[in-house]
């Protein structure tokens, strides 16, 4: 009998946790969070990378990120070319919303890097806006140095970590 009850409670707890997670990580869960999760993890269907309308295609063929030099939020020519392509894709897929993540390398203090990442994400948002992407489809977030993609303590890794990543989070109005 006690065992039965604890199994029942466990099921209920797991069920509850699953609901919470679905709300939190699921696409289109609210206007504010754009489907973004607390660990910096978002979940959205990637789709078929061969489908030009899929987030996977955006990531792989359009290019979802731009890079910055140390302590800078300036968009160089390569970055502007990538953002031009992002803007075209976003203008072709007006049901999509994005979160722009700003990141820094590990060679700075934590708080400053959060502010620097915010500045980088904002630079991308302003550029995309200038190319016709509506502000209400975009949100920015900064991770500072908290989410490096490369772990090595060398210049080549720092170069790849100083980035802004455009993440397709949800269909607008979903």
């Amino acid at each position, binding site marked *: 009998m006690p065992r039965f009850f604890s199994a029942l409670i466990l099921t209920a707890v797991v069920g509850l946790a699953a609901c919470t997670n679905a709300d939190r990580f699921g696409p289109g869960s609210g206007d504010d969070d754009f489907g973004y999760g607390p660990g910096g993890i978002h979940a959205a269907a990637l789709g078929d990378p061969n489908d030009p309308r899929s987030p996977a295609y955006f990531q792989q063929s359009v290019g979802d990120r731009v890079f910055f030099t140390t302590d800078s939020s300036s968009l160089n020519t390569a970055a502007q070319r990538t953002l031009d392509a992002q803007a075209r894709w976003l203008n072709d897929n007006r049901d999509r919303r994005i979160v722009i993540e700003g990141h820094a390398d590990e060679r700075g203090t934590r708080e*400053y890097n959060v502010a620097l990442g915010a*500045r980088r994400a904002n630079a991308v948002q302003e550029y995309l806006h200038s190319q016709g992407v509506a502000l209400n489809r975009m949100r920015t977030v900064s991770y500072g140095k908290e989410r490096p993609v490369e772990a090595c303590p060398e210049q080549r890794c720092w170069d790849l970590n100083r980035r802004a990543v455009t993440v397709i989070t949800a269909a607008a109005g979903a």
Partner: protein
Amino acid sequence: MKISRRAALVMPAAALLSAGLAPLAVRAQSNGPLRIEITEGVIEPVPFALPDFIAENGPAQEYAAPIGRVVVSNLVNTGLFREIPREAHLTRVTSFDAPAALSDWRAVNAQALIVGAASLSGSRLSVKFRLFDVFSGQQMGEGLQFAGDTANWRRMAHKVSDAVYSRITGEGGYFDSRVVFVSESGPRDNRVKRLAIMDQDGANLQHLTDGRALVFAPRFSPDGGRVLYTSYETGFPRVYLMDLATRSARNLGDQPGTMTFAPRFAPNGQTVIYSLSRGGTTDLYSQNLSSGQITQLTNAPSIATAPSYAPDGSRIVFESDRSGTQQLYIMPAGGGEARRVSAGQGRYGTPVWSPRGDLIAFTKSHQGRFHIGVMRTDGSQERLLTASYLDEGPTWAPNGRVIMFTREVPGGNPALYSVDISGRNLRRVPTEAAASDPAWSPLMP
């Protein structure tokens, strides 16, 4: 590079251990009390003996000796004291109240003698101690007794340590304090970060958050009962306030399209200051916790972050890149004109006002190295205390003598370190996992 210049640990005459301090530079001042100045290179730790604390009744045996060992560990870890090993003792102390045979302690070159005893009644533990200056034959201060629940036995050992340290150095203690920090696990590109709290010596570790949300940079309230931190609970960085007794946390405000981080309490415990990023610009705001009223303190198209109040609450030191690079500035607590204080080469960040009000600790990066340093509040007398691949985020011990910070080795995990403001006694603080962002509590009541 000056890692440390003159380390000036000044011991007032009242706390002087009289004779036997020959290795130290002793200097009489013409118009002041006798002082001992310990400078880099000539510091000789003061030898002390701490015979096992006496168990005054049977059940106290479980606590008596461990309490003594915690006191020894605290004192030795300061780098200012050296224990005379128990094997070398000539005498056993069997009665707390019997006069200590100081000649036997003189013979083993102990300069200080600490005798203590514990008794237990139910779950109530009493701990008492006496401190002797062996060479002068005098007791230093009155004997003291602490009592409390057995669950707090380590705290009582810390109280004894604080009293001993304070009597001998003339400085306030810092052992009965805690550290809130971020405990880290998992790979670097997907690190799990949990708020954690422990005693200053690493004991009694508890986790405060479950690791689901990314968190960083916790800060204590002036009474030690609450903690501010930044969490990605909503997916975006926001400032949270946690009550340590209940573990309940609340978001301090949620304006869509903004990010808030780098919070810190004002000394009054009622006001909180933090950074708010909007449209790529990061400014400082203060918020009254009871009314919720928010005041914008800086307004510049640049970054202003890592604010810290002076202990009297009148001014705020912060970092800004308004000049083009990260530098330190001081402004009135209500906002207004900011004066730059950092003057050396390199980038300066994470300034923290010392509890005594006389110094600002900071992180400096210059030529690919990171340093923890201190300067006077006008920017003068800058001294770098450490150097490594990545040192950052200083926090002051309650007595303003010791700084704890995060150190990361290339490609490795971060760990907590402490260093004396003289630049001496660099130590790793024991944590069971990778750790970062320490914040030292005030001395516990």
